[in-house]
């Protein structure tokens, strides 16, 4: 029986309570509450949650690394890391929404859905049972379907939601199918037991195990934006309200990785077959497709969407060589955390631009450096961090990922090639990040400054500080990721 004071339960209680209460309050107040009031309530809940996570960490109530418990949830550092990332993203989204949601309908439901989705993301990371994982996964997904289509009068928002929904539904079904197979051959839905089961699997049942892993890759890969399960992603990110795109790109995507880390990697390691190369191939495909497609984009949100596909590829490097290098998963975790902040900040900046200027077309953000200096600066820094330019945080996590790939070179021949593909893609990505910077700073010299939404500025300043500080002194986060890394190498390496 899981303790009632453990982190996931408390988060579930706080956020769930507030999330359900918000629409009720709204109806009770006859829908007269302002955006800010709902937003502040949401923020308080989120800050309380993040505070609790940190409190638990500080008091060492949290188990190190990823553990497998007899319960459906485990209060471990792995989950805490994701929880922090998700909650930061949720805070970003909420703050960004202050200005974005102004004069839009149904703010209470909007914030409530954000909260519910956040619970889902957090619980995905904490889940140690496939059923819990699946329910959390749906709790994360279903509100986002609605949020993506939240602009009811906007056809592209609806179109994005429909595409996203269809993919999501299929992916959920595939996940259930995968779970059913895994369950069928191991007789349990507890992840720990499933992995134990995998390790002692009959040789003639192994193909079923692989089938299950394949379905997990497809199902979770859809959220992560892995090629070839990425097709919905640019459309949905472009069509969604940019704040929600931030939530998707920075939050739900990471939950996909949390699930993948717990389930795919662990399971695959347990199966001890040559599955790593498959992930490696997907990683290279993913980053290449994402970066190449991003180059010619005209829409800022869409470009960022493709870039986030590319980043999924980088993160996958760490996963694919997890058994061969100690820093692979660490790098992935670090990059997940970083990417949450970087991509979140970038999308919130887009939200700011949309709020202030109602444009997302790259040609139309000329001279943004003069029009909205702080937003533009935040965007530039997050773009550079995404490109992995030191001394920003993105550099360190990419460094660790590439380092792990090279480190793995002593075991598997293709390890360094992952790193080569990674660095070349990283360099290629600079072309389109640089393009945005060029548009913002080197053109449109005659623009005038306009007022920037204050909430956006707050997010920008926070993320700039975060990115630069971590970039200059990454040690604490590296330590933390080390603390949070599942100890698979010791346990499962054949």
């Amino acid at each position, binding site marked *: 029986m899981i303790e009632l004071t453990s982190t996931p339960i408390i988060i579930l209680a706080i956020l769930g309570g507030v999330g359900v209460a918000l629409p009720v309050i709204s109806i009770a107040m006859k829908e007269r509450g302002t955006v800010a009031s709902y937003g502040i309530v949401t923020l308080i809940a989120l800050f309380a949650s993040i505070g609790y996570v940190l409190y638990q960490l500080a008091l060492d109530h949290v188990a190190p690394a990823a553990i497998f418990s007899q319960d459906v949830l485990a209060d471990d550092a792995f989950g805490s890391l994701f929880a922090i990332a998700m909650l930061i993203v949720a805070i970003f989204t909420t703050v960004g929404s202050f200005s974005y949601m102004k004069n839009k309908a149904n703010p209470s439901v909007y914030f409530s859905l954000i909260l519910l989705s956040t619970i889902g993301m957090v619980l995905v990371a904490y889940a140690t049972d496939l059923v819990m994982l699946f329910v959390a996964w749906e709790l994360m997904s279903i509100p986002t379907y609605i949020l993506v289509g939240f602009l009811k*009068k906007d056809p592209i928002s609806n179109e994005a939601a429909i595409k996203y929904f269809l993919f999501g539904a299929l992916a959920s079904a595939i996940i259930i199918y995968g779970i059913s197979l895994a369950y069928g051959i191991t007789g349990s839905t507890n992840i720990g037991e499933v992995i134990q089961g995998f390790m002692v699997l009959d040789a*003639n049942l192994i193909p079923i195990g692989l*089938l299950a892993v394949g379905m997990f890759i497809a199902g979770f890969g859809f959220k992560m934006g892995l090629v070839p399960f990425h097709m919905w992603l640019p459309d949905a990110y472009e069509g969604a309200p940019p704040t929600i795109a931030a939530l998707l790109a920075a939050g739900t995507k990471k939950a996909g990785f949390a699930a993948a880390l717990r389930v795919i990697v662990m399971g695959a390691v347990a199966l001890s077959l040559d599955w790593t190369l498959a992930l490696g191939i997907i990683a290279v495909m993913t980053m290449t497709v994402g970066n190449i497609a991003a180059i010619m984009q005209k829409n800022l949100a869409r470009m960022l969407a493709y870039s986030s596909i590319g980043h999924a590829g980088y993160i996958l490097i760490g996963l694919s060589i997890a058994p061969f290098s100690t820093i692979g998963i660490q790098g992935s975790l670090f990059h997940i955390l970083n990417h949450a902040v970087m991509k979140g900040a970038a999308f919130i900046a887009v939200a700011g631009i949309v709020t202030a200027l*109602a444009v997302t077309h790259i040609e139309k953000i000329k001279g943004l450096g003069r029009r909205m200096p702080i937003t533009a600066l935040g965007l530039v820094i997050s773009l550079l961090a995404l490109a992995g330019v030191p001394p920003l945080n993105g550099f360190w996590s990419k460094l660790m990922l590439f380092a792990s790939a090279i480190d793995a070179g002593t075991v598997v021949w293709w390890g360094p090639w992952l790193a080569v593909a990674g660095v070349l893609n990283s360099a290629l990505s600079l072309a389109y990040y640089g393009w945005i910077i060029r548009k913002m700073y080197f053109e449109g010299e005659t623009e005038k400054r306009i007022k920037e939404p204050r909430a956006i500025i707050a997010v920008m300043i926070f993320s700039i500080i975060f990115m630069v500080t971590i970039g200059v002194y990454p040690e604490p986060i590296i330590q933390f990721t080390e603390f949070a890394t599942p100890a698979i190498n010791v346990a499962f390496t054949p």
Partner: protein
Amino acid sequence: MVDALFLGIAVLTIVSAIAALEMRSLIYGGLALMGTLGGIAGFFILLDSPFVALFQIAVYVGSIAVLILFVIMLVKSELIFQKKEDPKRRYAGIALMLILMICLGAVIFNSGLSSITTEEPPVDYKEIGEDFLIYYWPALIAMALVLAGSITGALILARRQDAVEDEQRTD
């Protein structure tokens, strides 16, 4: 050995699944879908899980299918009838379907699954309840939130008029 009942339900399920997708009229398609869902319920009964079967019938046939039918009625009548599909896409889809069936089927068929049979008695319903309350209780809460979220969200989306007009993006 496959018995006749199983065979009958299997044929019913698969044929009505295909019919649900291929019937010209959406309404008949919806009815055929109910056939599929009912067939699945039948399988559940075959598998000695009447509780799940009843739940299936209650939720799916009783509510979801009806909901779908309502929506079908709601939209314009010409939309109910199928438009012509792109033949290329259709053939590609059929090919994909067959390949998937053959590949996955072959994998499963060649694996150790094919030899599994059981003579043990089915699990007691009470165990399901215990599972829910003792082991899966956080998941249950989470599911409650899912349902709450989806219902409020769906309501908000489906609601016709809003207090404040949405602004549309200009570009």
